[in-house]
């Protein structure tokens, strides 16, 4: 149904103006500039730039370094999303089941949402620090010489663990609210129809939770791709060198440190396409979700 | 106080679909007009066009002496009571009633006087400082009424205002609305899909179907002389029995003069039970097979069939009948309604002779 609306007047234009102005200057202008400069090669001194067509893209996509970062990004994204979702789902289901202390648990499990990713990264550094970190000690009990900042895979492990820790909170909030919105009557019907709690979970609860889960999957992928920037920046201690980084971090590195404007822009555009595709999937899905309700 | 004049008004949404189709209605000063019809018949759209919430595609609406087609809702001097009351949830009852007056720049003490007066009338006095969420459904309904009253408008518009109340409260509020409208004497247009509400409230009833007016008249006139099969089946509960003329197996006793009769109608309470062999009598007599008995206390309804046609019969008190019983039923001729193939009411469809002497004529034949 269409909303009842006011007719013609100047009011809507005045109301839209501020947002449109900000969006035009700080969104469309830079986004357009990113696309434009991805087709140009700027000389190192910034005096001139030449149109090079898709050369920047070809360079980026054929670079082994880029491919290495892309592969790490995929692994990073998959592992972070998987563990953060699984842990959060388990905790949300339990927090939804218990009768006593539900509110306390909710608070204890969600508050990490308020911490900034780089602060989470700093905690990660402390706990995985070679000299003082307790996790290094724990790892050594199992004969694992954990050396972050030195060993590529050890650093990757610490990053993923910290990113998962941070992301569990937001997933928990959404899963719990998704569980709580399952109508009481449906739960009670399931309780009568099915004795096994585990079976009930997989045949009734989980299917009803899929909309939330799918929404969260997209959120988690976006998080792992973009929002972990601060965490990665901190955990590589500003010394990317041999450390694992993600694609977004590489855009930043090549653009600001490497002064490779064209290459960085081409990488930006490639990421834009990825996000665009992700969002389309999300929108399509959200449309379908309306029919669930 | 004002007359309301609706002249050839139509509402056309996209394309050619007419939600309201060339409707003309006159509402006299102080008259209570009820628009009734099934959902989607265009009654609400018509009301919203009067209110100015929908644009008028064709025709003109006049309130008092002014054509209001191009006026803003606020400039039309009307007040409206909405189905969900549309109370401002963040305002106290007092402010809900005062808001429209403040927007008109009426003096503070005048607003206060009017709000308190309306609150007294509606027994809302103790509730003035409450928020809508602290009120019961009936109380909210009253606040919505109060918001309309304080405006002292030329016309009240009601959009199914009772449909969210439970049955008991609804009949109570019905009486209250009627009483209030009488004492204030304000011209009112009331939309409902409930025929009982329509019958009891209306001075003038308008039955609508598919965007068109089916019939306009006093409630009992509409009930007694429905203008179409649609009105016949919509007004009155249980609905009028409508039987194709061809299914009656006419033996001539109806004294048919008009060959265009396609449907015969009769109300369940106009049916009398007759002994099986009694084929005497003026009017219609039929054989009825009982399918189900519905006792409602003071009366009972027999659901069953005449031939292949479904018929409902009303019986006083308890019905001794059982499922499967076959009984004879009869309807006096003056209680029969006839409609043509288009469902329009026919008048004078029987021969004057049949109307007067059918009974005696038949008895004579038999004796011979």
């Amino acid at each position, binding site marked *: 149904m269409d909303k009842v609306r006011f007719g013609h007047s100047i009011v809507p234009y005045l109301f839209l103006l501020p947002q449109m102005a900000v969006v035009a200057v700080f969104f469309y202008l830079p986004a357009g500039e990113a696309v434009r400069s991805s087709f140009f090669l700027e000389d190192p001194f910034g005096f001139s730039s030449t149109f090079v067509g898709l050369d920047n893209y070809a360079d980026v996509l054929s670079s082994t370094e880029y491919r290495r970062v892309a592969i790490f990004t995929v692994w990073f994204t998959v592992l972070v999303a998987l563990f953060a979702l699984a842990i959060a789902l388990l905790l949300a289901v339990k927090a939804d089941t218990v009768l006593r202390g539900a509110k306390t648990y909710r608070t204890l499990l969600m508050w990490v949402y308020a911490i900034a990713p780089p602060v989470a990264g700093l905690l990660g550094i402390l706990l995985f620090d070679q000299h003082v970190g307790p996790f290094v000690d724990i790892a050594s009990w199992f004969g694992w010489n954990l050396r972050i900042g030195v060993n590529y895979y050890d650093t990757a492990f610490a990053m993923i663990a910290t990113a998962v820790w941070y992301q569990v909170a937001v997933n928990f909030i959404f899963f719990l609210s998704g569980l709580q919105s399952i109508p009481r009557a449906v739960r009670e019907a399931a309780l009568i129809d099915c004795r096994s709690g585990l079976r009930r979970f997989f045949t009734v609860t989980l299917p009803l939770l899929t909309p939330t889960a799918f929404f969260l999957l997209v959120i988690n992928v976006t998080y792992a791709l973009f929002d972990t920037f601060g965490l990665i920046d901190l955990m590589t201690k500003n010394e990317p060198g041999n450390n694992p980084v993600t694609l977004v971090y590489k855009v930043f590195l090549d653009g600001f440190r490497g002064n490779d404007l064209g290459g960085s822009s081409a990488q930006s555009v490639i990421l834009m396409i990825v996000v665009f595709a992700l969002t389309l999937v999300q929108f399509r899905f959200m449309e379908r979700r309306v029919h669930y309700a | 106080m004002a007359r309301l004049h609706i002249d050839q008004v139509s509402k056309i949404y996209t394309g050619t679909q007419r939600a309201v189709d060339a409707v003309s209605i006159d509402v006299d000063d102080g008259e209570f007009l009820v628009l009734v019809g099934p959902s989607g018949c265009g009654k609400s759209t018509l009301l919203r066009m009067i209110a100015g919430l929908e644009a008028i595609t064709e025709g003109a609406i006049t309130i008092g002496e002014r054509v209001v087609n191009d006026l803003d*809702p606020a400039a039309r001097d009307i007040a409206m009571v909405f189905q969900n009351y549309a109370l401002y949830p963040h305002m106290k009852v007092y402010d809900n009633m005062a808001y429209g007056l403040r927007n008109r720049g009426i003096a503070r003490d005048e607003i206060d006087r009017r709000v308190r007066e309306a609150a007294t009338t509606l027994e809302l006095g103790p509730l003035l400082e409450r928020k809508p969420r602290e009120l019961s459904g009936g109380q909210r309904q009253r606040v919505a009424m109060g918001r309309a009253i304080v405006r002292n408008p030329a016309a009240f518009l009601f959009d199914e205002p009772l449909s969210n109340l439970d049955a008991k409260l609804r009949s109570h509020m019905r009486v209250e609305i009627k009483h209030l409208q009488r004492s204030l004497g304000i011209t009112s247009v009331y939309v409902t899909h409930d025929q009982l509400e329509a019958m009891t409230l209306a001075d003038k009833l308008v039955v609508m179907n598919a965007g068109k007016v089916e019939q306009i008249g006093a409630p009992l006139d509409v009930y007694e002389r429905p203008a179409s099969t649609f009105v016949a089946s919509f007004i009155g509960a249980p609905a009028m029995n409508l039987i194709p003329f061809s299914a009656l197996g006419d033996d001539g006793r109806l004294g048919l003069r008009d060959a265009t009769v396609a449907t015969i109608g009769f109300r369940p309470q106009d049916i009398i039970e007759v002994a099986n062999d009694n084929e005497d009598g003026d009017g219609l007599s039929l054989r009825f097979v009982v399918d189900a008995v519905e006792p409602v206390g003071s009366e009972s309804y027999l659901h069953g069939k005449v031939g292949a046609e479904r018929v409902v019969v009303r019986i006083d008190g308890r019905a001794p009948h059982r499922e499967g019983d076959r009984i004879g039923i009869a309807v006096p001729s003056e209680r029969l309604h006839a409609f043509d193939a288009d469902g329009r009411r026919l008048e004078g469809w029987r021969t004057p002779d049949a109307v007067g002497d059918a009974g005696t004529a038949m008895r004579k034949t038999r004796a011979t």
Partner: protein
Amino acid sequence: MSNAVSAARPLAPVTRRPTFKWGPVFDHAILIAGSAFMLVPVYLAFMTSTHDAVTVHTGGVQALPGGSLVDNYATVMFDGLGFSGAVNGTTMMLNSLILGLGFAVGKIVLSMMAAYAIVYFRFPLAEFAFWAIFVTLLLPLEVRILPSYEIVQSMGLINTYTGLIVPLVASATGTFFFRQFFKSVPDELIEAARIDGAGPLKFFLDILLPLSRTMIAAIFIIMFVYGWNQYLWPTLITTNEDYFTLVRGIKQIIQVWVGSQIPEYGQAMALAVLAMLPPVIVVVVFQSWFIKGLTESDK
């Protein structure tokens, strides 16, 4: 019959003890483990922040309180940090507050106005405006960071609060949220208001704004936390230490840390605790609003 039965075993239902169930115990065990998983890192960081650098350097991360709490926090709050020593924790906290509040207020004002125009008016550019604003949901700041930086630089907004805050406002999350909320406001309310003689501005101020109070509060909390926690943009835009936020200051800590013999673990963790404390307090105190805002904005 039923009397006979209950007479035969009158106390049967009463004396039967409920069987002990292991399920809830197991549930609580998992939840306690989960809570510990979330709490322990921050607990350790806080404990470490109460020790001096040497203790941490020799003894590792500390699990019990130490004696340097006041020292460490006082140093972080009032003494200079960073290269020039020009900025201290108090300044950074003030800057964080300005960023968090400025971002939240700016976002709410802009997005509420835009959403009102889009939802409640029929005008030729409505469709265009809708899409122009909603496309911004597709591209996070991170992917257009370099040109954004250059534009802000060319406008001379480096090291200004305007340059810090306004570009962050250029996304549609708030607009999207308010649009959803406005659409859920019953139509009858606007109709009643029109009959009561309220025009577009009056309706917005008298009806819609008060109705949105809870929503505004919820969005405010989310946006404040989001603004406070910004890292990449402040890192680029503020090179002058007077404009550093707490989260931005974390990066400075790391740079000093990398170069030093005995890093000031205690002070670093004190800064981290200060950086997380305000948003954590806000989120925990206004938990129900915050969750409502967060989970309803996705619909």
